[in-house]
């Protein structure tokens, strides 16, 4: 059991509800409190509020745990977890409370927190959603009650209802419907007015016209004591369309909030060493050239700089795509975003802000993204044809009516009937419904979709470009010759390796399973290896130079040597393993008729090996970020619709330049911003799944357009001939809305196999 505990300490499971009580969390509490200072807001009533993202909030069981830990803290007036957004909201009295005292209990439970700055965009988004919900509630109330009255009127047509009763019911309907239209129609009226004042037509123009004209005409009819009013049609229309609008807004909000959580978690702090020797935790963004900071093993570098002191191996895969760690010494140049694996480093900042490699890449991303902004969503493209066509039809109806000798009232009524029956429910309701269903299905499969049009673009892709390190491969080494090495040697090496964070050492420990504790003093020589000093001699694990043998370059493989006390040498071979299902996924993608390609910053020998094993003919190695982006633009010019799959900082410009792009969830920040979709887990299966769902969603949207057109082919001639009664209009409208929505919901079906895959992805602990 003791051995088991030992391995668990080496690799703390990031799993749910595990209390990881670290040796001392004071440093983490202080760092978090310092980083949170900027995100604290003062409320009007004098209290302070802080919103934190909880990184490892996995299940509902965590909620009472966190809230329970916060329950009886003095000064805290609210500590509530939101499971939907995975955030914790703290509200406390300013004077009496110390922020560190509030953060400590949650950190002590083993949760990882990051401050979240509630941006202006976020606040406006929430306000907009509530406004739509209020409108929806009012429209729903009005639709229900007006329909109640309308059904009475319709049944009265065949019964014995007198004109006085009918007029009373009409007046009551008007009393409900007119304020409801004025209130709940605002989202559409606003958008229509802003479109018209910009000289454009959008979908909301015919919607607003239909709703307003129907209400106005019905009021006129009511005053005249007429038989036919459309109050029910105008409020039901609003009700259906508001549902669509709300679904659209909620989907965008959900994807955005998840993406923003990822952003907040990436915010780095730096341990700044002042000239006097004092150390201070500051936000990485506040670093200036000339500042000196210290990086402990396992930390990311917060800025570009030059090493002053120390020696360490750096994981540079996020910047260059190179899978082997790079050893740095004093005077070496280092870049923001790389990770320190073993030694402690003192680094002087040489560039910050605009001049870092990171901002260079972000500039490339920005230029590349301008191309994608030109994409027009399917619904908008349809609206461009639909809106003018509807207006033209209504006009023609009016003119024809006058030409055929009808009075202008009757002609106008026919024209309004045309506007009402052609109202674009299929576009306003069914497209968001398809997208919500598709995005929900992908979310269950571990794919996060950042925008609705990403799925539309993905559906048209015919060429896929992959990055290698971290995308096709796992981005971390795996022991190759575990079977050839004696298990006692492996155990011995693993016991030693447990003291290091170097990826090769971690891989060794993982391969060995439970290892015995080593009764010796272990020292780590940064950038070289480990030494265990025991009374009867020295045990060494590390690079060839560390154990005193000649180095050999084995291309894709990296080596670790173990030197026993008696001088016997054992060699461990590692390679960056492919994702478990990479080969199967590539075969499946090819079977779908897609062409595949690899663009990598790694060495040619390694890339060639991966390409051969996956059966991909086209590959390029040693490509820098600008070249990747250029290659994608060249492919686009050649007429391909290219999707890029990549994770590194070096992939970000290419991700932005691609027609659609996908990143693993552990990708660098820049890539996550640039990518349309993020997928979680070790498997690559979410990529073909996203492509399949994207295509299905596109097919369903087009089907819905066809249904809408079919329904209009029946309804419009009837309306033009003046044969549409309010009853017929209500039946048509509800039926078409229900049919397209039911069709849209099919996008969520058929994800059975993806659920199994998700289970498999969870079974393999993601790192």
């Amino acid at each position, binding site marked *: 059991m003791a051995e088991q505990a030992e391995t668990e300490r080496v690799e703390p499971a990031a799993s749910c509800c595990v209390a990881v009580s670290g040796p001392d969390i004071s440093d983490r509490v202080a760092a978090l409190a310092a980083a949170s200072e900027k995100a604290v807001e003062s409320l009007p009533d004098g209290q302070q509020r802080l919103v934190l993202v909880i990184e490892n909030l996995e299940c*509902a069981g965590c909620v009472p745990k966190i809230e329970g830990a916060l*329950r009886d803290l003095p000064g805290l007036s609210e500590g509530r977890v939101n499971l*939907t*957004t995975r955030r914790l909201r703290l509200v406390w009295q300013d004077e009496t409370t110390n922020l560190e005292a509030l953060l400590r209990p949650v950190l002590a439970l083993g949760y990882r927190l990051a401050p979240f700055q509630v941006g202006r965009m976020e606040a406006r988004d929430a306000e907009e959603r509530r406004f739509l*919900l*209020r409108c929806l509630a009012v429209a729903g109330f009005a639709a229900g009650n007006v329909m*109640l009255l309308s059904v009475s009127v319709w049944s009265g047509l065949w019964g014995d209802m007198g004109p006085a*009763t009918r007029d009373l019911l009409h007046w*009551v309907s008007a009393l409900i419907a007119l304020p409801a239209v004025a209130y709940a129609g605002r989202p559409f009226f606003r958008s229509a007015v802003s479109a018209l004042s910009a000289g454009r037509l959008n979908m909301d123009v015919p919607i607003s016209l239909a709703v307003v004209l129907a209400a106005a005409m019905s009021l006129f009819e009511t005053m005249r004591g007429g038989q036919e009013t459309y109050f029910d049609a105008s409020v039901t229309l609003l009700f259906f369309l508001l549902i669509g609008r709300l679904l659209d807004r909620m989907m965008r909000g959900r994807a955005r909030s998840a993406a923003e959580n990822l952003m907040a978690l990436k915010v780095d702090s730096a341990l700044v060493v002042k000239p006097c020797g004092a150390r201070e935790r500051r936000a990485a963004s506040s670093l200036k050239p000339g500042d000196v900071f210290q990086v402990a093993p396992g930390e990311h570098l917060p800025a570009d700089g030059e090493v002053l002191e120390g020696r360490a191996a750096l994981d540079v895969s996020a910047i260059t795509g190179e899978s082997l760690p790079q050893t740095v010494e004093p005077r070496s140049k280092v870049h923001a975003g790389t990770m320190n694996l073993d030694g402690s480093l003192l680094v002087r900042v040489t560039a910050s802000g605009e001049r870092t490699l990171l901002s260079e890449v972000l500039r490339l991303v920005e230029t590349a993204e301008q191309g994608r902004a030109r994409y027009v969503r399917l619904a908008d493209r349809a609206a461009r044809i639909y809106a003018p066509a509807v207006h033209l039809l209504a006009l023609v109806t009016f003119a024809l009516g006058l030409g055929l000798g009808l009075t202008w009232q009757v002609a106008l009524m026919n024209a309004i009937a045309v506007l009402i029956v052609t109202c674009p429910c299929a576009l306003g309701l069914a497209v968001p419904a398809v997208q919500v269903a598709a995005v929900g299905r992908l979310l269950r499969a571990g794919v996060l979709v950042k925008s609705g049009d990403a799925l539309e673009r993905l559906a048209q892709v015919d060429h896929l470009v992959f990055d290698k390190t971290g995308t096709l491969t796992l981005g971390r080494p795996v022991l190759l010759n575990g079977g050839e090495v004696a298990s006692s040697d492996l155990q011995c090496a693993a016991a030693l390796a447990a003291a290091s964070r170097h990826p090769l050492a971690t891989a060794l420990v993982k391969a060995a399973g439970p290892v015995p504790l080593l009764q010796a003093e272990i020292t780590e020589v940064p950038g070289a290896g480990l030494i265990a000093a025991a009374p009867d001699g020295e045990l060494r694990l590390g690079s060839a130079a560390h154990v005193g043998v000649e180095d050999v370059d084995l291309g894709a493989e990296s080596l670790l040597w173990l030197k026993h006390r008696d001088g016997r040498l054992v060699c461990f071979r590692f390679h960056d393993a492919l994702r478990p299902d990479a080969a199967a996924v590539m075969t499946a993608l090819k079977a779908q008729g897609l062409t595949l390609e690899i663009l990598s910053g790694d060495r040619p020998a390694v890339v060639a090996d991966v390409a051969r094993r996956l059966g991909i003919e086209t590959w390029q190695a040693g490509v820098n970020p600008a070249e990747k982006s250029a290659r994608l633009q060249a492919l686009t010019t050649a007429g391909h619709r290219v999707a890029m799959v990549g994770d590194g900082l070096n992939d970000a410009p290419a991700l932005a330049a691609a027609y659609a792009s996908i990143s693993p969830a552990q990708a660098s920040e820049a890539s996550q911003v640039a990518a349309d979709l993020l997928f979680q887990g070790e498997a690559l299966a979410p990529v073909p799944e996203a492509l399949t769902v994207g295509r299905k969603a596109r097919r369903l949207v087009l089907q819905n357009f066809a249904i809408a057109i079919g329904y209009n082919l029946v309804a419009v001639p009837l309306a033009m001939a003046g044969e549409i009664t309010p009853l017929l209009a209500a039946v048509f409208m509800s039926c078409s809305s229900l049919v397209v929505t039911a069709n849209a919901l099919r996008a969520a079906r058929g994800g059975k196999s993806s659920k199994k895959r998700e289970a498999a992805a969870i079974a393999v602990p993601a790192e």
Partner: protein
Amino acid sequence: MNALIYLIPAALLLGGLGLAAFLWALRSGQFDDLEGAKYRILQDDEDSEKR
């Protein structure tokens, strides 16, 4: 038909009550965490006494 005189106001009143209740729930933030709400009913917390 005289029944309509009070039946319509009664129907409107009941509907209006529902609408008011929904708007109140929306304002007090009960729709902010749709995911967590379904689990909260299963948790027996001493928290409720405090509020």
